[in-house]
């Protein structure tokens, strides 16, 4: 385990480990709220299993004074809710780390030098209570003391979080927390740096919340889903907020139904969206092409998890790139975008809707478990809940013309839409090939002229709109020893790795790809033209992105960093990979996951 140089500003990672059902989420959420209200930034990642009770969970919450780019790769404070956590993770703490555990049930292991063991006599401190998760509250009190924070921060957070359960529950928890706080103050040495305070409170969003909120801001009025990890958070947010916002939310019998229902709604003129993971997206696949053929704008969200098939439902991967690129038979246009983090996902949803509506085609947003189930701090000043809405060409003329051609072959390729129900513009849309009026041509023996006309019209409208999508730019020094290329969620961890590489006198820069389609081949080629060593970083085995990049640009990367064990990349993985590539000329570096075993 490498150690970070002593940070000038706060950079601390707290981990809570235990079995599912031990109530890990609640203390994690309370800590996140405390930090966010104090204006501190954070990112949390929950390594868990597809299990409701039992198993092993490790929630990592990294807090800092500036934007936290990843969950990092060092633990400073570990709360062991069970023996398993102690046995698995104690060895990961280095000098200055603190390990909290219930000394009634958990035997401490042999810590690394300089690690502070902090045993909590839970029974003695909590007295005679039937509350099975009381040690979590006690631990929060202890943590506040170790963090050098004022107890009132925790008391306020507990009152707010447990207020609904009544004053007796609040009093019991605050009392127990206070006991933990006082016990720690007299028994354990706090971290040297007391908890700082940021300028202003920040918001705390899970990526799925951000996607859902982005949909609401974009004007989504119809959301359908079939529950599937790690996309269900979008459904839950929508179900929670939909009725008050005037958003129709439906849980449908399967993802085939989801996608087709969404398309039916979108054709009527609402902005409609659905989210799933790869397996569900596989079922939606045929509908993606039908939206393209009928020219109905609709947004699909695919939150990637480790596959293939049912795969590893609670683990992350960037393994569906090829799937979304190949989703649906035939040759057709659609946008595919992979945002970097929660805030980016929030901003991307309205942008994708604008593009999809202008080009009257499907848009696919590619998230992953890391983004969707990760928790991010977001500066509320960066959040625009009333983004620009561009619905594209809609027939506004209320006077009927009687000769409306839904698929009129215009110069831009864009045929103005009419929302069904409008008088005088009756037309039929079809998944069969059709002519400008929407009349099927598939049953004609052959009509190569009309077929070619329609294929080119659809391609042209996409090109018209896709021109407005911003190309990627190189971040970091222009001249660098290494250029790291990734897509989607690897942005933050690569950025952090670059800062660390600089400390080791390795100059690196990053080309982060967000738009998969349209892919800016010319801009990418130019950005990589002078790169001394191109390293592609991706969270899959076969290098799906590397293959795509090569296909689009002809560029073959010098080396690769790939991870496919279900856990996300950490900065150290990339730093070690780059050093290994530079010194050993490794072609494909596969980091070893050490934290969650």
């Amino acid at each position, binding site marked *: 385990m490498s150690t970070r140089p002593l940070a000038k500003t706060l950079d601390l990672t707290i981990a809570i480990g235990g079995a599912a059902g031990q109530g890990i989420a609640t203390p994690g959420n309370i800590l996140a709220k405390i930090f966010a*209200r104090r204006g501190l930034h954070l990112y949390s990642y929950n390594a868990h299993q597809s299990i409701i009770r039992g198993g092993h969970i490790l929630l990592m919450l990294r807090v800092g004074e500036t934007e936290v780019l990843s969950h990092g790769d060092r633990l400073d404070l570990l709360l062991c809710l069970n023996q398993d956590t102690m046995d698995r993770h104690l060895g990961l703490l280095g000098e200055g780390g603190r390990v909290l555990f219930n000394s009634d049930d958990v035997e401490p292991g042999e810590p690394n030098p300089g690690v502070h063991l902090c045993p909590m006599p839970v029974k003695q401190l909590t007295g005679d209570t039937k509350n099975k998760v009381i040690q979590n509250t006690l631990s929060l009190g202890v943590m506040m003391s170790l963090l050098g924070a004022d107890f009132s921060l925790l008391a306020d957070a507990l009152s707010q979080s447990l207020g609904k359960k009544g004053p007796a529950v609040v009093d019991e928890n605050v009392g127990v927390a206070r006991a933990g706080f006082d016990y720690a103050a007299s028994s354990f040495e706090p971290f040297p740096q007391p908890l700082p305070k940021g300028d202003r*409170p*920040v*918001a*705390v969003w899970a990526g799925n*919340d951000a996607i859902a*909120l982005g949909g*609401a*801001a*974009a*004007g989504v*009025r*119809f959301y359908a889903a079939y529950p599937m990890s790690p996309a269900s958070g979008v459904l839950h947010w929508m179900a929670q*907020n*939909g*009725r*008050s916002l*005037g*958003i*129709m939310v439906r849980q*449908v*019998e*399967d993802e*085939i*139904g989801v996608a*087709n*229902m*969404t*398309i*039916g*709604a979108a*054709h*009527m*003129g*609402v*902005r409609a969206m659905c989210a799933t993971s790869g397996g569900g997206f596989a079922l939606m696949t045929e*509908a993606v092409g039908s939206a393209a053929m*009928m020219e109905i704008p609709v947004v699909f969200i695919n939150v990637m998890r480790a596959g293939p098939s049912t795969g590893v439902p609670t683990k992350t991967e960037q393994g569906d790139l090829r799937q979304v690129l190949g989703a649906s038979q035939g040759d057709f246009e659609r946008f595919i975008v992979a945002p970097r983090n929660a805030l980016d996902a929030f901003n991307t949803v309205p942008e994708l809707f604008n593009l999809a509506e202008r080009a009257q085609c499907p848009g696919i947003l590619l998230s992953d478990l890391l983004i969707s189930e990760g928790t991010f701090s977001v500066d*509320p000043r960066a959040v625009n*809940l*009333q983004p620009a809405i561009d619905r594209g060409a809609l027939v506004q003329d209320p006077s*009927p013309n*009687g000769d*409306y051609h839904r698929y009129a072959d215009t110069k831009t390729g864009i045929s103005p839409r009419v*929302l*069904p*129900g409008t*008088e*005088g*513009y*009756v*037309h*039929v*849309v*079809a*998944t*069969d090939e059709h002519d400008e009026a929407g009349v099927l041509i598939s*049953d*004609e*023996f052959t009509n190569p002229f009309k077929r070619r006309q329609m294929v080119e019209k659809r391609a042209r409208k996409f090109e018209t709109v896709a021109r407005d999508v911003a190309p990627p730019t190189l971040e970091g020094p222009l001249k660098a020893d290494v250029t790291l290329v990734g897509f989607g969620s690897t942005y933050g961890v690569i950025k952090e790795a670059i800062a660390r590489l600089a400390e080791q006198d390795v100059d690196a820069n990053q080309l982060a790809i967000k738009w998969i389609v349209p892919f800016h081949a010319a801009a990418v080629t130019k950005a990589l033209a002078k790169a001394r060593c191109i390293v592609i970083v991706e969270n899959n085995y076969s290098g799906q992105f590397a293959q795509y990049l090569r296909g689009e640009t002809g560029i073959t990367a010098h080396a690769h960093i790939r991870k496919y064990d279900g856990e996300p990349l950490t900065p150290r993985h990339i730093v070690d990979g780059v050093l290994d590539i530079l010194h050993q000329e490794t072609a494909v570096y596969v980091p070893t996951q050490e934290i969650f075993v």
Partner: protein
Amino acid sequence: MSHATLEKPSVSLPHTPASAKDFKGRVEPDWCPGCGDFGVLNALQRACFELGLQPHQLLVVSGIGCSSNLPGYMNAYGMHTLHGRSLPVATGAKLANHQLTVIATGGDGDGYGIGGNHLAHTARRNIDITYIVMDNQVYGLTTGQISPTSRLDMKTKSTPQGNLEWPINPLTASIMNGATYVARGFSGDPKHLTELMKGAVRHRGFALIDVFSPCVTFNNDNDYPFFKQRVKKLEDVGHDPSDWKSACERAMEWGDTIYTGLFFRTERPSLDGSEPILQNAPPLARRPLGLTAQQGESLLARMM
């Protein structure tokens, strides 16, 4: 099959339809001469006229198959969707614009085979959609294979030695699944069929009309004479459509007598009628987009 498509001059000019012909679409059907689907199309156009519908207030959604070409032959908003997916598309459309009259059409393979799961759930939701299934007991557009309603032992291209699988009963299945208007018509009796369709559209809830619509090309077993000799109207035998047990018994009969008519009807809140955000409000598709400043602030405050 004929491939003739006749371009017509402009259609859909707004005026109150003067006859059923005003619901004729841009092109003439390319069904085989004698196909049962002609009778269904004619009955539907007549029902729409007699109901006083305007073409722009009507959305006809189909799947894929011979009969699913129907929306193209109607002067109405239409969606010719994927094989088996007419019902979810129609459901999304109805929820997004609940002021439209939504009719889904298709065949037995489309609705009872590949789309069977959606039929069960659409019935359960009791959304205000009329679903007309042109049931010819065979796959026609793929040139003659068994369908979910093909009889036992039927010989087709995919069952040259005879069909081993028991046919589905769409009527009893839909009654059990929660459909609130379940009927069967015969394209050889368009007058009766028109009345069933009118009743289905007027009914507030999910209505299924299974229509015997003979395939004159690929089904020699279930042709016009087969049905003409057997069909008997429930209205003529004093059936009470509120009696679901009797409805199921009548629907199970398949021999010298095969019943047509309204088997079952009940009142239950429809999905669109019970979804709070649709009540006393314009269609979702006609509402402004995006969040108000107040909604935005309150959401952001909650997500802090």
